[in-house]
């Protein structure tokens, strides 16, 4: 997580602070960044998906109803770049510091303001930035560890999801109505 060809140091600092606020360390799991979620986000933003694969990008772009879903010009990478910069501008104006320098309680309050859309960002809606951040964070936490997050299957252990090989033809009867306690395994364990 030290060298980062695609994210700036400021972006990495923001993401680490944000991810650890969304997924704090406790008895249930290590923090989001200790589970590799920031690495996950960095790799995803550098992937074809981050560059806009699967996203219809032709204009014209209009102000939309919520039912129209995402209508911004930005690729995910561009949205994160603009969103992180705007978030730091907002926290500097509210608290005089970048987001990652805030105390835990102020980080929580800032993320809530982004989530509700009550934080006014310039050039990009804070709600859209938050939704993209939350989605990508949860994807990283719960996806197979081959993508860099969910290190040691931490998230799967937290909920009791056994991962692979997912062959339950016997267990669907023998474990019917009973807890199925098996240490989770990743795609990497079978490759």
């Amino acid at each position, binding site marked *: 997580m030290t060298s980062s060809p695609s994210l700036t140091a400021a972006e990495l600092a923001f993401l680490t602070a944000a991810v650890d*606020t*969304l*997924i*704090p360390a*406790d008895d*249930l*799991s290590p923090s989001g960044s200790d589970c590799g979620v920031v690495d996950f986000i960095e790799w995803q933003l550098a992937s074809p*998906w981050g560059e806009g*694969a*699967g*996203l*219809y*990008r*032709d204009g*014209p772009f*209009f102000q*939309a*109803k*919520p*039912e*129209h*879903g*995402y*209508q911004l010009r930005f690729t995910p990478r561009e949205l994160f770049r603009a969103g992180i910069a705007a978030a730091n501008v907002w926290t500097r104006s509210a608290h005089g510091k970048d987001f990652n320098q805030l105390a835990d309680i102020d980080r929580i309050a800032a993320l809530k303001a982004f*989530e509700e859309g009550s934080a006014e960002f310039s050039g990009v809606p804070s709600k859209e930035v938050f939704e993209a951040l*939350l989605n990508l*964070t*949860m*994807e990283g936490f*719960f*996806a*197979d560890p*081959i*993508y860099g997050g969910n290190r040691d299957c931490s*998230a*799967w252990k*937290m*909920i*009791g*999801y*056994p*991962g*692979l*090989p*997912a*062959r*339950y*033809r016997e*267990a*669907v*009867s023998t*474990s*019917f*109505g*009973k*807890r*199925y306690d098996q240490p989770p395994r990743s*795609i990497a*364990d*079978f490759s």
Partner: protein
Amino acid sequence: MTVKLKEVDVVVVGMGWTGSILARELTKAGLHVVGLERGPRRTSEEDFAPPSIRDELKYAIRLALIQDAQRETVTMRHSPSETALPIRRLGAFLPGSGLGGSGVVWNGITSRFLPSDFELRGHLTQRYGRAAIPSDLAVADFGVTYAELEPFYDRFEKLCGVSGKAGNLRGRQIAGGNIFEGERSDDYPNKPLVTSKPGTLFARAAAELGYHPFPVPSANASAAYTNPEGATLNACEYCGHCDRFGCAVNAKASPNSTLHPVLLQDPNFELRDHAAVKQLVYDRAVRKVRSVRYVDVRTGAEYEQPAGLVLLCAYVFNNALLMLHSGIGAPYDPATAKGVVGKNYCYQTTSRVQVFMEDEEINPFMASGVNGMAIDDVNGDNFDHSGLGFFGGAMIFCSPASGRPIMIRPVPPGTPRWGAAWKQATAKWYNHSFFINVSGASYAHRHSHLDLDPNYRDALGRPLIRMTYDFQENDRTLVAHAAGVAVKIAQAMNPTMMTAPPAQRGSFHTVPYQSTHNTGGTIMGSDPGSSVVNRYLQSWDADNLFVMGASTFPQNAGYAPTATVAALAYWSAHAITTQYLKNQGPLVDA
């Protein structure tokens, strides 16, 4: 420059369920068939193998087997007075792409429609009187009856090795099956799968309330099975990776597992993949389609393939797009209710109740695409609609299909979406919560339709399909009624807590996944003034063009459409091979 190819007997546009069924039936009849598929060639062995197929991020979130919205999508507006915007990232519905199409990525619900669903206007008129049907409710008859389709439903169930239990075998009611279903000529080829814990709890509560639970018919084989084509399906592993995935053990019926092992070996069949069809070349003077223009999306090269017979087997949206873009049939105009192509776009109305039971271990990750229980007591016209203010109904079912944790991590209502409290609730409830689902009918409204968008284009330079659609009063009251029954059943399960069903949603929303059961746009019927294809799915405007799929439904019933889509494909193939090939012209006089 377009390369003009040598004429072939048949060209099939789209190689999902209907294209594969038609290609198989027509090659068997001795014709040379070319299948054009916009996506890549895919086989179960090479493309759906473990461990890499067990990748939720790649398949369920980044949608590796789904239509690429960057190349082609749909625009949406709620009413004709609005400007439509493109669905930039697919959400509410997810059509498959690549060989096998949506037939690869479905869950396998294989319900038949009710007999009254096919004769809806006639049936409702007879039972409730003409005056009872609101003037803007554009319900129509299919032009084919359940009894006519029954042998073809039976064929599809045997092709797929469907697991289920008959409820009406040659008129004899069988307890434990669906006693509301139309008369069946035979039982399902496989016994029901092992019912999930939630399904078992649901069935017990429903039966206590006097409803009639039955196992949801499932195209996931409960035991190894060899179909009439000689293709072998293995027993389902309950892996919880069904919808949005290809099957790792060849237990889910798909075109790839049930038909392609034979079809791809047949010298009469030629598959061309990465072939995106741009246009049908229509000769209005002689009322024939002469050829099909397509682009090899890898090279950009454009080809024109002449054919004696053209079968339009794409997904609902591309069927409508190709008809409109090729100038075949009069486009529908909602202002005048005249014209036919694009009319009666319908969907699936949905709702759900979330149940939390802290003492029950659910193991949501042990699931087949379908291994749950349902009731049909409030579906179709199985109950008296007098004075209710709506027509139609819903299947209510409990059949959790996965515990894949990026998507499935239930928390009680009011829980924050992140932070310490969210973590605690997620860890506590993951193994103790599930949904009861409502899958309701969607009856056509005169405003709901598909046409060509004036502002946005696809990767081939054509207009995107524009959807004008919103939920109407009939949809809202229908879903509220069925959701009320789902709530009663949930309460009878004595849960720790439950959610109220979404108070009937406002407008159609393009983001949360609801259903890939889009229907209409090229509807079938008995009259060229009100339908696009006749009862054999033959175009009224070109006798050598047949249009397959749910785009031919005049409205959608309270069921998943696949079995009916496939039964209609077999019905049409039968008409082509037994009637059309002997006497090439309209099968029904206009």
